[in-house]
């Protein structure tokens, strides 16, 4: 069955360029050390890998209606975050497209610190799934085939 329904869904109404707002948090020493321990890399430069900036801002608005399993990521890294500094993240809908009858959204997030230092830009390539359908159903079928 085609994943692209003739009925309109939330994906159809999400405008490319939509501003998803901003969020802020302080990256603590503990967050940095916990991340480095969990990934087994005592020198990891970007604990923000675990912060999922694009997903967090997307879900703040769309969690009640849509899931966005992570199919890929396009990221650029400028300056590692400094423990103790506030990180300010802004995000927008960068793109949307249909590929092999599946709907995708690309959410772009930009992170700077409290001194205006650019940390990273990150684009989440997500498979758009209405909440009425199990989020990983279609990829699970492919993986298990």
């Amino acid at each position, binding site marked *: 069955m085609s994943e692209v329904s003739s009925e309109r869904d939330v994906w159809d109404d999400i405008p490319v360029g939509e501003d998803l707002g901003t969020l802020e948090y302080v990256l603590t020493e503990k967050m940095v050390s916990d*991340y480095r321990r969990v990934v087994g890399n005592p020198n990891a430069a970007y604990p923000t890998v*675990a912060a999922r900036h694009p997903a967090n801002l997307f879900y703040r608005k769309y969690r009640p209606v849509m899931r966005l399993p992570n199919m890929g*990521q396009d990221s650029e890294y400028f300056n590692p975050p400094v423990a103790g500094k506030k990180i300010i993240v802004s995000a927008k809908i960068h793109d949307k497209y249909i590929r092999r009858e599946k709907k995708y959204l690309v959410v772009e997030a930009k992170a700077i610190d409290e001194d205006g230092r650019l940390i990273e830009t990150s684009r989440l390539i997500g498979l758009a799934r209405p909440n009425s359908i199990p989020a990983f159903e279609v990829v699970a079928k492919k993986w298990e085939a």
Partner: protein
Amino acid sequence: MVPVFQVGSNLSTFTREISFEDMVEFEQVVWARDANAHNDAEVAKRDGLVKPLASGQTQMALLHELLEKSFGDGWVYGGKISVRYIRPVYAGDRLTPHGVVSAINAENGAPQFVLDVWCENQDGQKTAAGTAHVGQPTQKMSWIEGAQA
């Protein structure tokens, strides 16, 4: 000694086993997340999976480590990566990140290395694949030394 890379050079790599405990904790570090398909078997089943799968970010973390160790500041200050997650990673899988230099371009008078990057599981299957763009390799790790590049 600063590594010398040519087109075709393979990056020195390592292998990590992904435990369920790691998957659970990964969902809590930096940004605590609720029960989801990466840390809870029931949620994974509701989401259409046979069992929890590791977050794609787990693989991204391995690729970061590979590039940090090989390029130092050359990756950390200005590196780019584009990756697609193509097979699931489950608890108990052993992942090895890989990188091969595919091109060396000049950008503003400095070499820019283009790499094919991927993660491979214990069965030799690619679980993630993409490309990375990285600057000149160096042993400098300015983010650890506390200096700004």
